[in-house]
Structures are given as structure tokens and as C-alpha cells.
């Protein structure tokens, strides 16, 4: 009996619901991802898996691939040509956080021998 009296209301609510669901599925413009199709979204996610910007650009800008490869070779050469001390220094450095590096630098500066023997150079007067 109730259904018979309010059939028009049930029809309106159900119809509006169906229209809204259809609009949402078609990417109608309310989602944060609206306007982005799946391939683009997936590509941007892929960027986060790269730690090296060169590699990122390598994928993104294929026309720079030669430059990127050359840089990678140079970097490898540099490391290969390092003395054991330099290699150790690099290794230590990569294992340090930035605050640790800054602290070590300050300690080095404080311990640096002072070169203060003899008449100062005239340049100091211009300070």
C-alpha cells in the first residue's frame, strides 16, 4: 500500500542514484585522480622506484640516453681511479647522514693547524 502511494518517490531516488554512479565511473571530475588515465598514473608511480635522477631522466627523456650513459661511465671511472683512502672516504661519506657530515667538518675545521706565524699579509687590512 505504501509502495503504491510513494512509487514515484522510490523511482526518483533510485534513478538519481543510478545517474550519480554512472557519472562517477565516467571520470566526471570529482576524484583527485580525475583527468588521469591509468597509464599516466602508473608511470608516475614508477618514478618513485628510481633513486637516481639520471635514470629517471633516462626513461623520461630517451633522447638524452647517450649523455646519461656517458655520465654513468665517468662516475664509474672516477670511483675506479680513486686511491684506497679516497674510496674509504667516499664509503664513509655515503654511510653518514648530513648532520653527521656537518659535525665532522666542524671538528676538522677546529683542529686545522693555525697558520699565524709572521707579519700578516696586507690583504687583511682590507677586511
Amino acid at each position, binding site marked *: 500500500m505504501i509502495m503504491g502511494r510513494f512509487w514515484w518517490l522510490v523511482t526518483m531516488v533510485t534513478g538519481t542514484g543510478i545517474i550519480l554512479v554512472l557519472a562517477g565511473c565516467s571520470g566526471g571530475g570529482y576524484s583527485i585522480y580525475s583527468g588521469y588515465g591509468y597509464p599516466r598514473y602508473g608511470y608516475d608511480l614508477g618514478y618513485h622506484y628510481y633513486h637516481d635522477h639520471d635514470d629517471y631522466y633516462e626513461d623520461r627523456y630517451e633522447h638524452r640516453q647517450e649523455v646519461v650513459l656517458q655520465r654513468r661511465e665517468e662516475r664509474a671511472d672516477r670511483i675506479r681511479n680513486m686511491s684506497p683512502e679516497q674510496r674509504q672516504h667516499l664509503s664513509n661519506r655515503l654511510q653518514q647522514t648530513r648532520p653527521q657530515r656537518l659535525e665532522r667538518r666542524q671538528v676538522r675545521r677546529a683542529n686545522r*693547524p693555525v697558520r699565524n706565524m*709572521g707579519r700578516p699579509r*696586507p690583504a687583511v687590512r682590507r677586511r
Partner: protein
Amino acid sequence: MLETMLSRHGRQVFHFSCRPAILLVLVFFLGGCSALDLSGKTTGRSFPPITDSPTRGYHYGKFVWADLITPDVARAKTFYGGLFGWTFSQYDRYTMVINNGKRMAGIVNIAPASEKRPQPLWLPVMSVADVDKAAAFVRHHGGRILKGPLDMRGRGRAALVQDPQGAELVILHAATGDPADGKPRIGDWIWNEIWTNVPEKTAAFYSPLGNYTSMKVGDAYEILLSENRWRAGIRFIFKDPYKVRWVLAVRVADPARILTRVKKLGGTVLLRPDEPPSNGDTALIADPDGALLMLQRWPVDTTEDVQ
């Protein structure tokens, strides 16, 4: 002339035969006067003045002279003559050092086993307006008077003093005036600096003594100025291998190259120019008897006057 002096108004006072005797008496009288100690405190010997000709000008606070105290003057002459081309002139027992025809220092002999001054050293000589007042200042502010004040005949009034930290120097009011300010040539003095581990105390002591103003250069150096000219430096030594002392610097063309000659002449190289604390232009050496001396290169084209 003597005859004219003795005869007034044309009247002959003494007979002609008396004149030789009067002359002799006068000669002895004048000689006695010159030997008389009129000041009450005068050194017996005479010393050469610190300038070639009287200047009558004074630059208080300036280091106007230096004396080397050494047990072997002959060895010192061989060493410094060979190293810098200095020449020497003998004044009684005092040896005067000459560089490029200009007098610049002296060498004084001390007994090798002298307990008073066991270590040979270069003593800087600072010009002061009043030696007695300056000596009183030194005594009053914790320093010591090692000798004087006394009149060094020909040189001026001087005192050998020790600052509160133990560095020795001479204060002098020169009889003929101080040397004029000018640019140092190769072989001349270019700098004096005091090495101290208490730079604030040292600056507080020397600033009134030499009437200095001061200028800091970094954390570990201070320049003392008088008449708006750099006169000396206070160098902060963190560790103290050489004790508190004044160290003088001679201008050389190339400190690194001259070091080979130092060794050949019997001296010791204590610091090469590339070793800290040298600033790259200085070297520290010791002469054969152990007196320290700094060698410093100085730019030829500098517009700055030194001392």
C-alpha cells in the same frame, strides 16, 4: 787662538813659555771631564748610535733596533754574514750589523756559561718617550727590570726589561732619534712578534707601554699600531714549545731557498714555509748558537710602508 783668549784688551797675561804647560793642563782637564760620570748612572763604554745620522725624530712604540746576545760573536758574524750578506763594524766590544750600508742591529758577547742569560737570543729594542717612566710601568704591571735604566753613551737611555709573561726586550730613548719609517729592503727587519699563550694579558701590557692601538686578525693574531702603522704582532700560541718570547723577522726574497744556506752555515731549520704555523711566506731558524729568527718573504710591489 789660545793666546788671544788669554790676553784680554791687548794685555799679555802669561808669559809665552807657560803656554805648553797650560795646554797640557787643559787637555787633562777636558779628558777628565769627559770620563766623569755626570749622570750618576752611565755605562763606561760608548755605543754607536742607532742611526747613521741624527734624525731627532721619534716614533714611540716602533721597534728601532735589535741586539743579538750570543756567546760566540765570530760564529754569529760568519753565519749572518753568509746568510744575509750583512757586514759588521767593531765598536770597542760591540759589533754593529750593517745591511746595504745602513746600520740595523748589534751583537753583544755573553759568557758561554752565563747563568743570567743561558740562551742566546735576539732582543728587540722599542722606542719609548721616557725610559724611566716606562721602566716604572713595567715594574708596576708585573714585569721585571733586568738592567737599567741607564745612559748608554752614544746610544741613549735604555733598560733591559722582562714583561709579565717573561719575554725580554729593551726600551730605549735614542740619543740621536729614531730611524725614519720606510720600506724594508732584503736583509732588513720586517717584523717583530711576540709569541704568547695569554694574548689578552700581553695586549693589555704592551698597549699602554708602546701607546699602541690594536687590530685583530682572525682568532689567533693581533697587530699593534702606533702612528697608524703596523709596529708588531701578538701571536697566540696554543702549545708552547718555544716559551713566551719576542721573535724578529728578516725580509728575504725566498725563505724556502735560503734554508739550504742555513744548514750549510751551521744553523738549524725549525719550520719550513710549508709547515704550519708558517703562513707560507715565513720560516723559522736558529743560528748556530740557538738564537731564533724568522725569515719572511714580502711582496715587492706592496704599497704598504713597514716600520
